[in-house]
């Protein structure tokens, strides 16, 4: 019984995750996470706890949809230092990154 309810709780998360993850091969995922840590990290902190840019922790990002965050990642925020990453990511890569941020990236 208990195991079943855990399964039920976990399933939707896993399923929404896999829909996009399927398109990004593991080596590219590793590249994206490395870039997140080091290159996004130069403004957001290597542990994403904030720097010149705000913290990108699940708690702080909870009020945003992953899709909204993906738009910010791709287009940046004009007038602020947040640059557009469009030249380097596809739509699904940006969405995958946004989902990682919302889930909490392993540090």
């Amino acid at each position: 019984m208990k195991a079943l309810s855990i399964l039920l709780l976990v399933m939707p998360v896993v399923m929404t995750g896999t829909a996009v993850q399927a398109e990004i091969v593991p080596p590219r995922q590793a590249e994206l996470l490395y870039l997140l840590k080091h290159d996004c990290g130069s403004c957001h902190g290597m542990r994403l706890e904030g720097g010149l840019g705000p913290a990108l922790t699940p708690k702080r990002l909870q009020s945003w949809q992953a899709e909204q965050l993906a738009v910010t990642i791709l287009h940046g925020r004009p007038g602020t230092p947040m640059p557009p990453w469009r030249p380097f990511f596809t739509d699904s890569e940006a969405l995958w990154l946004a989902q990682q941020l919302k889930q909490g990236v392993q540090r």
Partner: protein
Amino acid sequence: MKSLSILFFTMLLMPGISLADCLTRGTGDMGVIVERAAGSLKVVDTTHHNTLFQVEGLGDLSHASAVYSRDERYVYVFGRDGGLTKVDILCGRIVKRIIQGGNSIGGAISQDGSLIAVSNYKPGGVKIFSADDLSLIADIPATTVTDRDGNKKGSKTVGLVDAPDQRFVVSLYDSGESWIIDMSDPAKPAIQRFEDIGSLPYDGLITPNGRYYIAGLFGQDGLSLLDLWHPEKGTRLILDDYGRGQKKLPVYKMPHLEGWAMADDRAFLPAVGRHAVLVVDSKDWKEIKQIPVHGQPVFVMARPDGRQIWVNFAFPHNDTIQVIDTETLEIINTLKPGKGTLHMEFSPRGESVWISVRDKDEVQIYATRTQELTHRLPVDKPSGIFFTSRAHQTGL
């Protein structure tokens, strides 16, 4: 009894044992390299190009910077997690470590070596500590601003440097100010505020003679200049048309102004949102030239004799270094150390330069005269490199 005293004497005679492996040597040819991911430091020898100690446990060192005590024995490391760590480089160990704030970005040591100032992103402001035991001496909150979430917070403080006459100078990112903090009476910090210096100052530097403080601006073209001999004149905007009204390119890493690059009367500065190094005449602060370069410059650093300028770049051009001749203002060499070329540091008189190459987990050492690679040192995800010669330079 006798055997006990013999034991005691033997211990005294073997400093290697009784002093727990501290070195007995000068430190003028030493330095530290920050291993940003591991949160550790390598203590290095710049004469023999080798590692002397590995010091662990310094916390989050992304974006870490460091200053030296005037006896060049202790290095104070400012970490992202608000950590301030005092390390004894002769013994390779932490003397004291405190968490002084939520999120720090850099610091400075006072003219007389007695005070360590730290600037914080969160909570914004400057804290000043005793260089001796890191006890808190002054806590100076920043101007309050309202952020995008509608919360009140202290402005981020950036570009903190030491200045002559026991002062510090710092800029406030969100509120667009520069402050002079006079610490001649440590019990009563005297603050002089300069408002409306320009939009979003992101870093600052002081000229080696300690006279001019310059804040780089992210929110507009130009830089803000403060003459510390005449603070009553206020700040003024220089190079305010360097972008010539053209659209800015995206900036994937903020430039740093810490390594002041000056040769004869010319100063070399990174442009923001342009792939250019700005050359300015330090007599009238007018633009002499814009040198087109490979990408968004991050560090623009002069060899100590001012004969060459070495430049590294922001993502996605961060695999490259360019070398500029300060007389002809031409690029004389383009090097490809590797991806994640993050920082450089010249040996005290500039015959060599040490370059951090993050993705290769190594520091590369080049002869500046020939620009040839001479040595490699394995270092885990290296970022900042800081040599002890900084101890005697204002602003470093």
